[in-house]
Structure formats: structure tokens, C-alpha cells
């Protein structure tokens, strides 16, 4: 039985002297995993390494027990919707989807049925017999997705899959990913639309300059980053006094008083200690109306982690 994990072990990849990814150590479990990082951070390199389009200079990769150097077996369980916006000349959407299925050993009839099912799934049946070259950007995106899911893969790799999709199709596509993930499959996607990643991902992998800076569940990742001061917005009546009480704590790095003097923006290095300090302040009779973490979403982590590179 093959291990249902995707494992990157000490993987490095250079493009000449330019770093692609460096010493990546990852274990990706089934579910939706998002690769988040700015342009050139190494997201596509990781996906290309995973699918064998490029090979690591160092380290090893195993995809559910299979090596990416064995496309014959790997691509039976893997579908990859690449960022490359081209299909072979004169290819129709239907041919684009069905060719891989025929090569996988399906008869023409079986391949046609599976291709049609995939095209139906992403709402592309009407344009199926048109040449891919005549498609709009959104249609090309969708037909690539149809090709990736047509073989009913265990591992679905999607490079910026939500780009160019209208809101309705986008919602259906997200539902499709969630359905795949619920069946114990891997869905690995990259995106710049961070709010969507935040909502749909089981896990995120934050990557910048070819290095993994954090990985895990969205909130778990947040916990991993001890060095990163968490931000909290506190609403209280005596904001100046609360600020002075908090400022003596070692874990507090910065406090900003709101203009209305009824709120504070506090940055802390230790959420547990911060929580304890707030409890003590409340017990001392100060009224704390609300406490809200302002950077628990991926966007905040992302901005913090990539710093000036964005």
C-alpha cells in the first residue's frame, strides 16, 4: 500500500546560479494545501518538481510512494493544471482532455466518456469541439482544469487555478476542490488570491525566496511564528491606562493608541502571556469591551513573512 503523503526531503533546485527552491522539507497530507508566496518565490518550481517537469538538484520527492521520475505511473494518479497557457496546435478542448486518457490505456469510447464528464463538470461542453487556441483566458483555465481532473486523480496540482474565472465558476471550482479533498485526495494549489486560500485551505505552505517559511493549518502556522508579534485590537474605556499596564510586560513590543482614545492596537510576541495579562487587568477593574486578533488571516502572515519582497 502506498503512503498517502507527498514528501519533499531536503529538496533544492537551482536555475544556473538562480535559486529555485532551497532545502525544502515537506510532508503534505491529503486535503487542500495552498502554496502561498509572491511571484518568483518558488511555488511553480515546487509544483513542477512534484510532477516531474523538472528534477531536483538535491534531495528526493515521493508522491504517494511514487517518484516523479516515473511519469508512466505518477501521471495515472496525478492531474496537473499548469500555468502554461498553450495546448498543442489545432487541438480542440475535447482532444486536449481525452488524449491523456487514451494514453492512460482507456479505449477511445471510455476516454470520450471521461473527457465529456470532466468538461461537463467545469461547464465547457459547448466549446468542447472548438480549438483551444480560440478560447478566452478563462476558458483555457477551465479546460486545463478539466484535463487535470479527467483521470479522476488522487493528486490534483493546480497552478493559480482560480485566475480568470468568473465568480459563479469560481465557487463551483472551489466546491470541486473541496469534494476531491473530502475523498482523501491531495489538492495542491497556488494562488495570489489570499482570501480564497484562507477560506478553502486545510493547510497553507508559505514560501518566499525559494524557502518554506511556514507550513500547517492557517492558525497553526500563525502559532509557529514565534518571532512575529501578533496584533490585537482592544476596545476599552480607559485606553491610556490599559496601555501603560500592558507596556511593562516583556512580551509587548508595540502599542498604538487609537485616535478616539477608546482603543489600542497591541503587538505581542507571546499570545499566552498577553491573554494572562489582559485577564489580570480585567480583574483589576478595567473594562475590556472586546479583544480581536487583527492578523489571524493568511494575508497578514503573508505580508509579515515576505516582508519587503512583496
Amino acid at each position: 500500500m502506498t503512503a498517502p503523503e507527498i514528501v519533499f526531503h531536503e529538496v533544492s533546485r537551482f536555475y544556473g546560479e538562480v535559486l529555485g527552491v532551497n532545502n525544502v522539507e515537506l510532508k503534505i497530507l491529503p486535503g487542500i494545501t495552498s502554496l502561498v508566496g509572491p511571484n518568483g518565490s518558488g511555488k511553480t518550481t515546487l509544483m513542477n518538481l512534484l510532477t516531474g517537469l523538472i528534477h531536483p538538484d538535491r534531495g528526493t520527492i515521493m508522491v504517494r510512494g511514487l517518484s516523479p521520475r516515473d511519469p508512466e505511473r505518477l501521471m495515472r494518479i496525478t492531474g496537473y493544471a499548469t500555468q502554461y497557457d498553450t495546448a498543442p496546435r489545432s487541438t480542440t478542448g475535447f482532444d486536449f482532455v481525452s488524449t491523456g486518457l487514451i494514453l492512460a490505456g482507456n479505449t477511445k469510447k471510455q476516454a470520450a466518456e471521461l473527457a465529456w464528464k470532466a468538461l461537463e463538470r467545469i461547464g465547457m461542453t459547448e466549446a468542447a469541439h472548438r480549438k483551444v487556441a480560440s478560447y478566452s483566458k478563462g476558458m483555457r483555465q477551465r479546460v486545463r482544469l478539466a484535463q487535470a481532473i479527467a483521470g479522476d486523480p488522487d493528486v490534483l496540482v493546480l497552478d493559480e487555478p482560480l485566475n480568470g474565472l468568473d465568480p459563479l465558476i469560481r465557487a463551483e471550482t472551489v466546491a470541486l476542490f473541496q469534494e476531491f479533498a473530502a475523498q482523501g485526495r491531495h489538492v495542491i494549489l497556488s494562488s495570489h488570491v489570499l482570501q480564497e486560500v484562507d477560506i478553502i485551505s486545510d493547510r497553507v505552505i508559505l514560501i518566499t525566496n525559494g524557502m518554506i517559511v511556514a507550513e500547517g493549518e492557517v492558525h497553526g502556522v500563525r502559532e509557529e511564528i514565534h518571532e512575529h508579534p501578533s496584533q490585537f485590537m482592544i476596545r476599552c474605556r480607559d485606553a491610556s491606562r490599559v496601555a501603560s499596564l500592558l507596556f511593562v510586560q516583556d512580551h509587548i513590543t508595540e502599542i498604538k493608541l487609537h485616535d478616539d482614545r477608546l482603543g489600542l492596537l497591541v503587538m505581542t510576541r507571546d499570545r499566552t502571556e498577553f491573554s494572562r495579562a489582559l485577564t489580570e487587568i480585567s480583574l483589576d477593574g478595567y473594562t475590556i469591551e472586546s479583544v480581536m486578533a487583527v492578523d489571524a488571516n493568511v494575508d497578514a502572515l503573508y505580508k509579515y513573512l515576505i516582508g519587503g519582497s512583496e
Partner: protein
Amino acid sequence: MNAAFRFRQTWVIARLHLGRVFFSRRSFWVYLLAMFPAVVFLANGIQMKIQHRWVPSRATPVALLESIQEGAREDEVIEKAGKPIKDRSFQVKNKKHQIRHMRYFDGERWWDLSFRDGILQRKHSRRIFNFTQDRLAFAGMFQFYYLRLAIFFGCLGIFANLFRGEMLDKTLHFWFLAPARREVLLAGKYLAGVIAAVLIFTVGAILGFAMMLWPHHAAQVTAYWQDQGLSHLFWYASAAALGCIGYGSVFLAFGLLFRNPIIPAIVVLFWENINGVLPKLLQKFSVLHYAQSLCPVPVPTNDSMPILIRLLISPADPPSTFTAVFGFLIVTALVLWVASWIVRRLEINYDTD
């Protein structure tokens, strides 16, 4: 996933590429290269037929033309043989000498008479329908043009594009993401190229051969056909097919290795053409060495030719037919093995291509 399954995959990939190889815009000039000999021999045949029908009314008796001797005067010749079919005069060497060319026809041959200052200097006759000469002309055309240039550049156009063209179009990833071994992809593409090239160039050779035979007398052609004709045609077609198989493997590998396969192809063209003067061992690493050995009619050479030209025309040590075919296939297999090694390591990195 057994061998039968991989053969099926190879055929599927080949079938998908065939349409592209046969009908792409890039293939247009491959057809031109392949059909050029047929067009030349067709044009020659048409000209011969037209001449044969048009001129007999103005034919001069052969005995009369044979009786004209060098040293005769212009007016004597015209008095004897009548007005020539063609008559052209001009002056040379600072207008010191008057040159005149006259042409007569005896029903089978052209007679060209050259005069200087009114005196016959040279008399030369040439048959319109010279079967032996035409067969030699075809042999020359096949070895000098067809094998060395047409098949060479045709295969360069077909095979180098199988991978390099897809890299330029940014579509190669489509095949690399298919559930097939890279070697199977290579075999499928190569098979498509071989089917297309062999079909185009063997048909081109057969058509050229047919056009060469067409204007000649039926009895002469039948006699040739019953004697050596079929065997000659078979070996011309075989040499063309093996040329496609050999050059195809080389240019397929070049398409994988080089961003611009034209430059290494020119190096190979040079290598192929100096093959006759290379040491025996090196001669074996040449497509032309084997393909030329299969040609049924040797190109005529004579002692007046420079030795280097003679060496280039004919292989210094031509192998036997069996050795040629076997050696050819060994060289091709070797090149394909190298190509499969390259394709296994090939990466999709369009930005740097």
C-alpha cells in the same frame, strides 16, 4: 504496463503527431525538396516529347549531317544541310573573332555545329531519348541532390521540430504530463516522423524515377523493367527510406540537444560530405556512407575529375548491402539510445529555451 501497452501508447502518440507532420506549414518545403527531381524529370520529359513531335518536319538526313567535316565553311554547310533549326552569332575577343552556333536535328539526335570566323571548329551530336544517359542523370540527381540535400534538410525540418517546435510553442509539457514513459514519447514522435519522411521521400524518389522513364520508348522501358528496373527502383526507395530513418534519428536528438539545430546540422552536412576521405573507422559513423552504398547505379566519374571530388562522390570503402543495412540500423539505434537518455533528463523550462 507491459510491452504491448507501450507499443499501443507509441502508436497513439505517433498517430496524433502524423497530421501535424504531414500538414503543418513547416512541411510545405519538405514536399518541395522531395518532389523537385520528379518535377525536373517531368519538365525534361515534356520538353523531349514536344521536341520529338515538333521537329521531325524539319529533320535533316543523318547521312548528310555525318558527312559534314570539321574545317567546312558556313556557306558550304548551309548549302548542304539547309537552314538550321537554331542559328546564333556573336563576336568575341575585342570583336576580332566571329562565333556562330548552328543546330540541326536528324529525327533522333541534335547536331550542334560551332564555327569560328566562318570555319567549323566542332561538331557534336546528342540523342533526345538517351536512356542510358537519363538513368545516369537520375543516379547523379539521387546521390548528389536527393540523399545529400533533399532528405538531409527534409529530415532536419521534420525531426528537429518534433521536440524543439513544441518547446518553442510551449506545448511540450502536455506530453510530459501524460502517463507515458519519456522513451515512449520519443518513440511515438520518431515513428510519426519516420512514417511521414519515408512516405514523402520514397514517393518522391519513385515519382522521379517514373518521370525519368516516362518519355522513353515503351519497348526500351519494358526491357529495362524486366532486367534491372524493379531492382533499381527498390534500392533507390530503400536508400531513401534508410536515409530518412538515419537522418531522422540524428535530427531528433539535435532537436532535444540544441536550441538552434541548424548549426550542428551544417556540421553534420560537412561531416557527411567529407566521409569519403575519412579513416575507415570514422566512415562507419555516417548515414551517407551506408545510404550511398545501397544506390544501384554508381555515379560516373572520370579521371579528369579532381581526386577529392571523386572521393566525395563515392565511398572509399563501400560496405556490402547486408553490412550497409545492418550498420545503418546499428548507428540509428545508437543515436536513438542517446536521444532517449537525453529525453529522460529533459526538463520543461520554457523561459530559458
